[in-house]
């Protein structure tokens, strides 16, 4: 009983925060501190709640059911998977809230802080409800709360017209996605006779294959829109940058994962048989999203848009784990299916942490420079050393380099793909080879991208005056970024422990109830594949690496030639005065990759030259070079749809004559039609 009350207290805390923020809206300061502190309390409560649930409950933590209307039950069910997501939401919300207290100060006197706090709390509460609701209608309501409140957060800085446009795009795309979801739930309702998840679970058993496949496709598109898979990703790179940075961190780190959560919930918890092609589709979608996401990120020079594209990439990596899990399940290899799902869950957790860290550090840079254009930065490491350090840790973690957390979830994903390659079926083997190749290439390109971002933002000389005015951000900024950076390292080093924990969580799902749980005894905290074919020990690697590093530094600095003199001089410049315009820019850095992948990215280059004397055409007065990336989805996917809808609408116009008699005739025909139908 107490655990239920704890859960309702958790929701109540956010509701309290939301209402309180509105009440205090007259005073910016009070509204801000109230919403910040309430959110901190709420997220701390959430973390304690989730950890407590893991420690004291085995599989199902609690079920609560209260009927409001015939179809709408207030039914919540917390199992291990939900508790895991509550943990992620609360963990990221905690640091975003701490950060937010300082970040929103520049909105004082400009916008209403109470409204911001209201939607912020509603947004987090919405996410918590999404991962705990077990009634279709209740879920849809929670889903809408989350979507709409995040829309208002995206357009919060409404004086910038781009933000309003981005918000509108987001609102449309998220509702297109919701339409697919609603359709999926309606089909389920037809067969189950109820919106309750347990009833649906029972109803799905007798469902014809055609409808199961339809539900799969609808759910993949619907939840995929929220998760940001390509090609329904277009809202993501415009909405995430528009929101205030701590909101972007929450959206990118946590909100898009709720799409993945529902995919897991439906595919793994509701269905009990899975055709092979589902997994293959998910795997292909994942491979494409990962590779294209990182390629588009490389072409960006807007700091936050770039990070948003990396979210698409990482969703792709998560889907690689999820897809292999589905395939292994259809092939009957439950142990590997559980392992692959654990890989996906681990990457969900890791991506939330390092993406939040990167967005918060990006926000810290933006709050000082007031621009998101990477080309305007440069040399910030001297002005903002702490932010630079934390951003570096985030970059290393997201690029999947040891000893940070990103590497270990990618390692698990790689191992599941390798097990898939070992399959005897040549077709499945080939799919897994391509997926592994895509993951390897994605890893490499992510590395390029983060060398580009870190180098162009923090290293070399300032490329504009605004950098020179930048100062290190406030203590609350550093505190939240530092904590997240530490967590990146801790989760990496504790990867062996997380491997076991997440295996337990995946094994607790309905689909795996007949699976025997494997546990290899972890040696020195190492991560182990189910058949013991591979192990990797993060703590040992870290200790050995640290020892070697200390030894090398000590030996080189203090043992060899102690009298060495270090002179500070200018960078060698071939004899001319080196200036900041000569150093490489972000665009220049990634230009060779863009050229190599020009078939996919379709770069275009335009020169506009103005001559001093238009007759002679010798001396340039000014020259503008425009480098653009062709948006393939816009031209080949969205514009045709847009055209089709306009054509259909104009066709529909011909039956609207404006004559009331005709409309009454329509009503009559419809009535007769319905009568016959019934």
């Amino acid at each position, binding site marked *: 009983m107490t655990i239920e009350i704890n859960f309702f207290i958790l929701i109540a805390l956010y509701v309290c925060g939301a209402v309180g923020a509105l009440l205090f809206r007259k005073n910016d300061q009070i509204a801000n501190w109230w919403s910040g502190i309430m959110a901190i309390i709420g997220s701390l409560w959430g973390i304690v709640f989730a950890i407590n649930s893991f420690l004291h409950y085995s599989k199902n933590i609690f079920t609560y059911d209260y009927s409001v209307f015939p179809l709408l039950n207030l039914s919540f069910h917390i199992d291990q998977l939900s508790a895991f997501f509550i943990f992620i939401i609360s963990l990221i919300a905690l640091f975003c809230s701490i950060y937010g207290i300082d970040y929103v100060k520049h909105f004082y006197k400009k916008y209403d802080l109470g409204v911001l706090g209201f939607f912020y709390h509603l947004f987090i509460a919405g996410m918590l409800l999404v991962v705990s609701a077990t009634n279709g209608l209740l879920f849809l309501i929670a889903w809408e709360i989350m979507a709409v409140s995040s829309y208002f957060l995206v357009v919060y800085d409404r004086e910038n017209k781009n933000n309003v446009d981005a918000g509108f795009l987001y609102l449309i795309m998220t509702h297109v996605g919701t339409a697919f979801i609603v359709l999926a739930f309606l089909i389920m309702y037809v067969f189950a006779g109820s919106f309750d998840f347990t009833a649906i679970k029972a109803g799905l058993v007798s469902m014809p294959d055609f409808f199961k496949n339809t539900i799969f496709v609808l759910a993949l598109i619907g939840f995929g829109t929220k998760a940001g898979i390509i090609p329904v990703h277009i809202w993501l790179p415009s909405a995430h940058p528009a929101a205030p940075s701590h909101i972007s961190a929450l959206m990118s780190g946590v909100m898009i994962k709720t799409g993945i959560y529902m995919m897991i919930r439906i595919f793994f918890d509701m269905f009990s048989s899975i055709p092979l092609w589902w997994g293959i589709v998910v795997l292909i979608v994942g491979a494409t999203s990962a590779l294209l996401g990182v390629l588009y990120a490389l072409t960006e020079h807007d700091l936050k848009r770039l990070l948003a594209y990396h979210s698409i990439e990482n969703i792709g990596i998560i889907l690689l784990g999820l897809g292999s899990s589905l395939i292994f399940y259809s092939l009957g290899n439950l142990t590997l299916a559980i392992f692959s799902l654990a890989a996906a869950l681990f990457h969900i957790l890791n991506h939330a942490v390092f993406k939040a860290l990167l967005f918060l550090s990006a926000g810290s840079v933006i709050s000082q420079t007031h621009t998101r254009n990477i080309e305007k930065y440069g*040399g910030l490491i001297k002005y903002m050393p702490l932010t630079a350090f934390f951003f570096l840790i985030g970059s*290393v973690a997201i690029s*999947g380099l040891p000893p940070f957390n990103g590497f270990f979830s990618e390692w698990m994903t790689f191992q599941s793909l390798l097990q898939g390659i070992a399959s005897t079926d040549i077709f499945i083997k080939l799919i897994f080879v391509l997926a592994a190749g895509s993951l390897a290439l994605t890893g490499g390109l992510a590395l390029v991208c983060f060398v580009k971002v870190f180098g162009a933002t923090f*290293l070399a000389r300032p490329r504009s005056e605004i950098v020179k005015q930048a100062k290190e951000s406030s203590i609350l900024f550093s505190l939240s970024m530092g904590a997240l950076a530490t967590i990146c390292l801790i989760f990496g080093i504790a990867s062996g422990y997380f491997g076991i924990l997440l295996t337990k969580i995946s094994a607790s799902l309905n689909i795996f109830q007949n699976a025997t749980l494997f546990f290899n005894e972890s040696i020195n905290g190492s991560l182990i594949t189910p058949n013991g074919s591979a192990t*990797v020990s993060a703590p040992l690697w870290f200790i050995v690496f640290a020892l070697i590093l200390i030894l090398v530094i000590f030996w080189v600095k203090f043992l060899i030639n102690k009298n060495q003199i*270090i002179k500070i001089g200018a960078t060698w410049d071939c004899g001319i005065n080196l200036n900041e315009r000569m*150093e490489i820019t972000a665009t220049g850095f990634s230009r*060779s990759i863009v050229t190599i992948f020009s078939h996919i990215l379709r770069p275009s280059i335009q020169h506009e030259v103005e001559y001093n004397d238009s007759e002679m055409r010798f001396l340039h007065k000014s020259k503008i070079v425009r480098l653009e990336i062709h948006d393939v989805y816009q031209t080949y996917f969205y514009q045709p749809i847009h055209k089709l809808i306009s054509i259909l609408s104009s066709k529909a116009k011909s039956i609207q004559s404006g004559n009331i008699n005709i409309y009454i005739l329509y009503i009559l025909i419809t009535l007769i039609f319905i009568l016959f139908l019934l």
Partner: protein
Amino acid sequence: MTMFFWALQLIFVPLVSPFFIGVVRKIKAKLQNRQGASIFQVYRDLWKMMRKDEVISSDASWVFRQAPFIIFAVTIISGLSIPIFASFLVNSLTGDLLMVVYTLALGTFFLALAGMDTGSAFGGFGSSREMTISALAEGGFILSFFVVALIAGTTNLFTIVETNIFLTAKFFLPITLAFIGFFIVLLAETGRFPFDNPATHLELTMVHEAMILEYSGKRLALIEWAAANKFFIFLILGANIFFPVGIAQTADFKAIFIGIVVLFFKAFILCAIIGLIESVMAKFRFFRLPDLLITSFILSAIAISLI
């Protein structure tokens, strides 16, 4: 006893690596009808640079200052994680092939950042080129390893070498294909022809040298040494993972001695091939390199489908 072998393994890579750089240079010199410097010249160069004073750019940050240590430490821990002369030293904790690949990538990451840190135009484009090549090489690198991992049923490099089942006729073709794929990656990652010219400072062609242009003294020595280590690590990987002959399976001195001699022999052959390639071939145009790297990826993919 085991401790002694581990200590030997720890110092083996940094101790021997400059020798093989010298060997390649000597082979190239002979092929060009030159006398060439002594094979041990690389050691003398390192010692000389270690004792010199340093100049550090005023624009450089701590990334530039600390990168050489990180890069060097990365090659040492990678040297510990691969089977060099003995497979009985099963390192099941860091000896995973993905761990080695990504540990080496950590070094590349910091090297590229150090290249950008001084604000020199050379460093920037050097980093850009290096990262482009290493990103595209990643696919071939991992897949060529996956071929042997699939045959051996494990991704632990020591166990792969210990299984030693590659010499059966059934696996001859896949292994050869994977090795060719790996060899292309070796040339790319260690900055040899046709990817990069290790002997040039011509601004149009340099990749690795462009990144380290601003280094001097001890830090330059560390970077050069780390590059030699990386080269030797790739030689060992090529020699031992794909052709695990002669590796000590038991802990006695005779077997270890044989292991070391055989390794030297195999590495020497690889060096001869590299030297030959560098003498008879021109550097590729930068935008033709992806073709080569994709070839490496496809070769490994074919090898996998043959298993």
